[in-house]
Each structure stands twice: as structure tokens, then as C-alpha cells.
């Protein structure tokens, strides 16, 4: 039961004023600017854009500043802002094959055309704290070499030529949009991918990890991981043709899984797909593994009771804003609710004690 309660305005105002002061911290330390966050905490910005489901690095940086670095709070701010935006339209599907790759690796083919390009990665670092960063110092300059100008082909296309991997069905159907219609189950793959793309990195990572540890029995290889910018094309109704309205940085991951075949499919490799905003490769790989796990039914693979095979479990629990909204609401005043619970417990106790008393007396 909800009952309006008045009071607390002054306390709330003062709490928010103190929050602002605490956000600023020690004023003898220089204040962070939004461009500093955008440029120097770029991976936090990328996560907020991906899970906030809105590509705008400046807004994501502002949200991180406002939320004092609480990324789920920042994602919440971005989601709230997103709902205020009129929808101009939808892009043509981005062609990741045309991506100018900052990074492109394959764990399945050493000598892949286009090569293994590491890009600005944490891989192969020693994970030792670098105290030089605590002192002011010049950043090391990146080295350069003769650039690759032509597009880098997708690794799975090579497997596809031999027929060893599933071909992705291609239809031009309008994909469902969970920001427009509530999610309904069973979901098709397009809806699952949208939900996973904006899902919580930690949750999707744990689900993916569970499939690797045996809860879902699949063994994935990273066929390809690529990061870079692609152009976004939008059809312009006034003009009758499409133009590029900008560029987004994306991380794309394609996983390949060995598959012994089933009643509906011959033995071949199957695919999982992850696509996320910015440089967010942990999330993209996780998304690809969970995508593959959730495809078990359509591939005719025996389903397990594992959480990662349970579409309802995954899709209804992967959104951190829904989760935190429901979780955190229980800390808000529930005085009347709780009063009625207390009444109930008192009444039950009284009945039981009365019964015991009567038994003892008999």
C-alpha cells in the first residue's frame, strides 16, 4: 500500500547540497572537467554508452562526473536522458566489414588475412601498478608503420567458404525494439541481442563464464575480435537517399563453437555474436557467448537447466537499471507496509501463544 507522506523536504535539500560538496571533494585538488573524463577515462565512458544505450561520449562523461564515478548511476542518468530524445529514425545496419580497425585479432587463425593487430590493449601487460602515472609525466608516443587502407575481411567468411560454419540468415524484417514495446517471450534473436547489448557487463560476463565452466556445455573460440570506427548511414526522407551522419566506435566479437550436429543441422561450427559501443571487449565477448547459449533451442541442441540456457532468466535479469531500481527501492520509506506486516506478525504470535496457553491449561 502506498500512502503519501509529507515532510523531509529540508532534509532532502540539505542532503543534496552535501552530495554536491562531497562530489567536488577537496577543493585544493583541481576539479575534473568533462573533457578530461571523456579523454582519460574513455573505457568508463564506453561502458556507460553501451549500457546506457546511447552513443554520446560527452554526455556519458558528464554522467560519470555527476554520479561521482558510480557507473550504474551514470547509466541510469543516460537512460533517463535518452527517453527525452525524439526518435529521428533508425540507421541502416552498420557494415562492420568496412571498419577501420584499431584492433583486430583472431584466436583461431594465426595467419588471417589482414593480420593480428593488437591495438591499444591491456593484453600482455604485467598488471603491475605503474607509479610513473602517479607522477606527472609525458605519455609514451605510439609507433607507426605503413597503414592498411583496404577493409579487413571477417574471419568467419573464410570458414563460410568451406561450408564449415553456419551461414547467418539475412532478412530485411524490421527488428523488434525493446525501448518501444515491452519485451515479450519467447524473444527472437534480434530482441535478445538488443537486450544483451545494453545488459550489465558483470551479469553478462558471469553468464558467459558459467557456460565455459560447464553450465550449458559449450566451448567457444574467439573467431574474431575487432575494434574501430564505422560510419552510420541514415535514410533522409526529404532527400530520398541515405547519408553518413557520423561514426561510432564499435567492438565486435564473433565466436565459433564446435557443434556435432543435430536433427536439423549437420556437424559444423556455430556462431555467437557480440556488438557493443566503444572499446568494450570483455562485454562483447561475453555477449557472444551468451548469444550462442540462448540459440540452443533454434539449433536443436539439447537444452539444459543451466541459467545461461534460460532465456527468461537471462533477459529479465540482465538490465542493471531495472535490477537496481527494484533492488534499491526497498531502502525507501516502507513505513506503512511494514506497519501492516508488524500487525500481522503480532496477531499470529498472539494466536499461537493463546493456543499454547490453552493447551497447557488443559
Amino acid at each position, binding site marked *: 500500500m502506498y500512502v503519501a507522506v509529507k515532510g523531509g523536504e529540508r532534509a532532502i535539500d540539505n542532503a543534496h547540497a552535501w552530495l554536491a560538496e562531497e562530489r567536488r571533494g577537496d577543493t585544493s585538488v583541481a576539479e575534473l572537467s568533462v573533457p578530461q573524463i571523456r579523454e582519460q577515462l574513455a573505457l568508463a565512458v564506453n561502458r556507460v*554508452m553501451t549500457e546506457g544505450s546511447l552513443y554520446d561520449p560527452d554526455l556519458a562523461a558528464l554522467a560519470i562526473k555527476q554520479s561521482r564515478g558510480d557507473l550504474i548511476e551514470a547509466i541510469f542518468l543516460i537512460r533517463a536522458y535518452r527517453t527525452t530524445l525524439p526518435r529521428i*529514425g533508425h540507421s541502416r545496419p552498420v557494415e562492420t*566489414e568496412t571498419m577501420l580497425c584499431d584492433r583486430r585479432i583472431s584466436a583461431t587463425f594465426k595467419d588471417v588475412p589482414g593480420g593480428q593487430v593488437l591495438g591499444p590493449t591491456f593484453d600482455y601487460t604485467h598488471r603491475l601498478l605503474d607509479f610513473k602515472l602517479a607522477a606527472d609525466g609525458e605519455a609514451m608516443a605510439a609507433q607507426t608503420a605503413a597503414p592498411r587502407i583496404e577493409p579487413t575481411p571477417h574471419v568467419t567468411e573464410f570458414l563460410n567458404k568451406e561450408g564449415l560454419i553456419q551461414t547467418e540468415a539475412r532478412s530485411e524484417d524490421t527488428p523488434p525494439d525493446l525501448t518501444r514495446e515491452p519485451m515479450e517471450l519467447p524473444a527472437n534473436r534480434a530482441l535478445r541481442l538488443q537486450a544483451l547489448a545494453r545488459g550489465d557487463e558483470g551479469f553478462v560476463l558471469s553468464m558467459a563464464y558459467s557456460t565455459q565452466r560447464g553450465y550449458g556445455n559449450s566451448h567457444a573460440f574467439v573467431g574474431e575480435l575487432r575494434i574501430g570506427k564505422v560510419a552510420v548511414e541514415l535514410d533522409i526522407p526529404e532527400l530520398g537517399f541515405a547519408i553518413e551522419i557520423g561514426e561510432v566506435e564499435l567492438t565486435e566479437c564473433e565466436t565459433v563453437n564446435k557443434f556435432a550436429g543435430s536433427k536439423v543441422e549437420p556437424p559444423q561450427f556455430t556462431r555467437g555474436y557480440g556488438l557493443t559501443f566503444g572499446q568494450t571487449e570483455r562485454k562483447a565477448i561475453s555477449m557472444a557467448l551468451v548469444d550462442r547459449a540462448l540459440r540452443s533451442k533454434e539449433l536443436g541442441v539439447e537444452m539444459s537447466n543451466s541459467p545461461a540456457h534460460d532465456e527468461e532468466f537471462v533477459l529479465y535479469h540482465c538490465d542493471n537499471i531495472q535490477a537496481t531500481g527494484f533492488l534499491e527501492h526497498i531502502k525507501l520509506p516502507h513505513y506503512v507496509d511494514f506497519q501492516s506486516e508488524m500487525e500481522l506478525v503480532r496477531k499470529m504470535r498472539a494466536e499461537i501463544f493463546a493456543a499454547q496457553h490453552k493447551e497447557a491449561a488443559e
Partner: protein
Amino acid sequence: MNKMNPASSQDEAPGPAARKAWMSVLAKSNPKDLNAGLAAFGALPTFDWLRRPEIGGVMVRGRMGGTGTAFNLGEMTATRCSLRLESGEVGHAYVQGRDTRHAEQAAIVDAMMQGPNAAAVQAAVLTPLSEAFATQRLKRAEKAAATKVDFFTMVRGED
């Protein structure tokens, strides 16, 4: 909302492919560079708004497996506007982000590219923007190339 653009015959004049190319360059340009290019060009024509700059979201779609059926990935911010120069040309802009000035300047250039000064606008504004974009891409590609792995096989010493 604005009226439908009656000037479709005018829109076709420079050829859709050319217009698509310059509108894309304008959309992807750095707003500071565009502003600098226009400032160098000199006095700009006056115009009337057909649609004032409007900030909105564009749903970005991807393809399953990079090649398959489309799905909705997430939105990006974008700004659009339409205007008519006093000389009659209609300019449209759709640009990434929330910079209304960027959209306005892109629409002015789009309109001017349909008028008598197109060649001068191309030289003063669009060509430098295209070059800046290409240079930026090349610099990243050069850094990426330096991180490409050169595998070599160690020869075992066992004859």
C-alpha cells in the same frame, strides 16, 4: 513541423551521389574545423529556417554475425535542421551529436553547394574537411599497423 520540401527538382540538380558525399563529409566533420572553414570563406548568405535545429536520437542497427538479419544495437544523438537561403536554395543537415551550430553550418554549406558558389565552397570548406578526416584516419591506421604481430617460428635445436 515543417512543410514538406517542395524543391525536389532543385535537390536533384547537383546529383544525389555528389550531395550524399558532401553531406556525409559535413556530418562527420569536426565542428571547429567547419566553423574555421566558413569563417575563412567570408560573409555567409542569410537564410530562413524551415526546421530549426532539433536534437534527437537515431537507433543504430547492427547485423547478426556482421552479415545477417538486423537488430537494434542502441541509439546515438544527432541534430537535424533545414533552411532556405535568400537566394532560394534549400539546405538540410543531419549531424552526429548535439551541436546545433554544427547542424546550422552544415545546412548552410549544403544549400550553398547547390548555388553558383559551389566550386568556391568546395575548395574553401569541403576539401579541407575531407583532407582532415582522411589524415585523422591515416594516423590511426599507422598506429594500428605498428601493433601488427609478425610471427616467426623458433627452430628447435634437436637436429
